[in-house]
């Protein structure tokens, strides 16, 4: 009764063994339990006993060869038994060289599966998981929720409070036109929102008597190609005053207040898709004529949509003038990272009581300065406006 001699597995880490030496030759008779070969593992040499009695009919693996465990290395059978089938099968198995795995590997884990129900983009603010959950539930945009505590953390109650304030969303009715809030409008809109809700805005209004300035400009514009507008004069004068009021000409950048040497004035231009603010660089160094010329060019480029990023970046102060629309007074939103913005209204003829008690008609223009109260406080803002008013009401000589 034929039986394979196999390379025995003699240790639980043993994967292969080397036939160190056969102690019997083909044709020898062997008895059960008799030692018939020696096997070398990486640790030691072991004796291997025959598991059956009979004749050692075939040595499949000679001395010195390495074989994976449990594969056949020899055959014990009766003298006359036909073992050709066994030999063939053995060689097939040895050709494969890899013994079958013992049990199916089924990983067993007693760990609970964690399935998050909210996905979050990267945020720099500290928002508690509870707050996020509430925001999702109420449909609140966390970007818009102000932190309720000095450490900047947004808690659930902050989300709820914000939601309460902005709860009433108008419904879409038949015939309403609906366009997606995307693109430039969204970018500008989000920036303005962020500015409004991050910087504590403080507002200062002053009425300025432009009678003298207007008369001066009218005279100068006669016989000029390049007409100089009130706005040009305003930009020019503001730039000069800013060099003397550096506390206004600053920005909040990376947790630091940067007081700029140069003055770059942003000029707000209204386009259909939103507000764009091209910047007049080095405004303080330009003459009034230059200011007029370059401002005109910038505004034209803005209207033609041909501004490059350099044209609308780097401003240190912005002026927004709605005077041409007849608006008397408005408050503007600061253009971050700047610290202030000047909102200019229309010039109107107003009765004014003079020092002597006389009523005269003067051209009065209201300006409103918005400042970021983190960077600028009342006294500084007031000083700036007073100085601006002086310069505008009493334009000096040597402007042209």
């Amino acid at each position, binding site marked *: 009764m034929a039986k394979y001699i196999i390379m025995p597995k003699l240790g639980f880490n043993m994967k292969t063994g080397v036939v160190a030496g056969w102690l019997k030759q083909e044709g020898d008779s062997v008895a059960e339990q008799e030692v018939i070969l020696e096997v070398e593992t990486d640790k030691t040499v072991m004796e291997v006993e025959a598991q059956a009695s009979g004749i050692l009919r075939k040595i499949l693996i000679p001395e010195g060869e390495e074989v994976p465990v449990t594969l056949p290395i020899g055959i014990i059978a009766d003298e006359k038994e036909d073992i050709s089938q066994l030999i063939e099968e053995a060689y097939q198995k040895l050709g494969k060289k890899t013994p079958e795995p013992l049990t199916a590997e089924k990983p067993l884990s007693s760990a609970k599966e964690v399935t998050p129900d909210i996905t979050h983009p990267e945020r720099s603010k500290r928002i508690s998981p509870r707050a996020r959950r509430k925001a999702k539930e109420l449909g609140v945009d966390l970007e818009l929720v102000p932190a309720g505590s000095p450490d900047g953390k947004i808690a*659930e109650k902050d989300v709820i409070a914000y939601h309460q304030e902005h709860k009433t969303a108008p419904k879409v009715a038949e015939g309403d036109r609906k366009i997606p809030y995307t693109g430039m409008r969204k970018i500008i809109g989000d920036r303005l929102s962020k500015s409004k809700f991050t910087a504590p805005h403080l507002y200062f209004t002053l009425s300025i008597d432009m009678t003298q300035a207007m008369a001066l400009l009218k005279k100068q514009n006669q016989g000029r190609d390049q007409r100089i507008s009130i706005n040009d004069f305003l930009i020019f004068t503001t730039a000069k005053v800013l060099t003397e009021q550096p506390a206004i000409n600053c920005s909040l950048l990376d947790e630091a207040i940067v007081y700029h040497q140069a003055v770059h004035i942003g000029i707000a231009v209204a386009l259909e898709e939103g507000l764009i603010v091209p910047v007049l660089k080095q405004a303080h160094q330009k003459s009034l004529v230059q200011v007029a010329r370059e401002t005109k060019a910038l505004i034209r480029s803005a209207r033609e949509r041909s501004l490059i990023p350099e044209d609308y970046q780097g401003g240190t102060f912005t002026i927004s003038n709605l005077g041409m629309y007849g608006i008397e007074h408005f408050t503007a939103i600061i253009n971050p990272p700047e610290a202030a913005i000047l909102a200019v209204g229309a010039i109107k003829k107003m009765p004014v009581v003079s020092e002597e008690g006389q009523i005269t008609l003067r051209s009065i223009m209201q300006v409103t300065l918005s400042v970021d109260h983190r960077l600028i406080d009342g006294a500084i803002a007031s000083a700036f406006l007073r100085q601006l008013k002086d310069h505008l009401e009493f334009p000096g000589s040597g402007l042209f």
Partner: protein
Amino acid sequence: MAKMKKVTYAQAICEAIDEEMSRDKNILILGEDVGILGGNFKTAVGLYEKYGDFRVKDTPISENGFIGMSLGMALTGLRPIVEIMFSDFLLLAADQLLNQIAKIRYMSGGQAKVPLTIRTTIGAGRSSAAQHSQSLHAIVCHIPGLKVVVPSNAADAKGLLKTAIRDDNPVVFIEHKMEYNNEYEIPEGEYTIPFGKAKVLREGKDITVIATSNLALKAVKAAEELAKEGIDVEVIDPRTLIPFDRETLITSIKKTGRVFLADEGYERSNIVAEIVMDLMPDIFYFLENPPERLCLPNVPLPFSPALEFPLIPDQEKIYKRIKAIFKN
């Protein structure tokens, strides 16, 4: 309303043992000094006189030996209660407790049943120093196969101990050594408390405090002080660590959004770390603040009271820590 009576924590435990021993003659208690002395903490007073030498057995100082013996007894028809003076001494029997008792039912494919209760003490505060003051219940929680019970007061101790003795599995019953002489109100008569049921000791809406053993009682006192500051604290006593009542804790934390845990074990690998991790999938999206814990610092306990008391978690420290959480 059940009629109440006043007893000490030690008396409540003694009552539980006495009642069970009179009910079932296969119940016996063994340990150092349980016999004639009535237990080093007076938890077996009168039992020796009542039940005799065999059922109230004074052992030699051979923890590994007699805890191993208690396993042999439990496998052959008895229901032993073993008293180990300090949880520190469990380490002497680590093999028998953690490799044998905890595992024998599993290794035998469910053939073995081990109705065994091992009672021990935790807690510092007596200048007993590093080797007699530890609270090592985290270690017995870590090895699968043991139930772990940590009562905070006498009433719970009595009811839970009776349940432990009647349980057909090995139970490690953790008593706080500083409580033994404290008086508590407990119900008259016999009663049991089931495992796996935490108790809300105080309701609140601002923060959930989970505290083990007598820290639960200290947390309640701290909560009363915090209430004066407008902080409304909910205090939960888990009572049993294995099996553990997740539901009560999850419900509470979902309500308050904040969790503070207190345990007298060393901070590193403290059982509260396991509790937080276990609850986290269910509580993460309800948290306002990260969980915080108060435990023993990672040093052996010093001898001098000037050094020991500043380390031990107590009412004052719980109060300060929670107040700091709400400083905004």
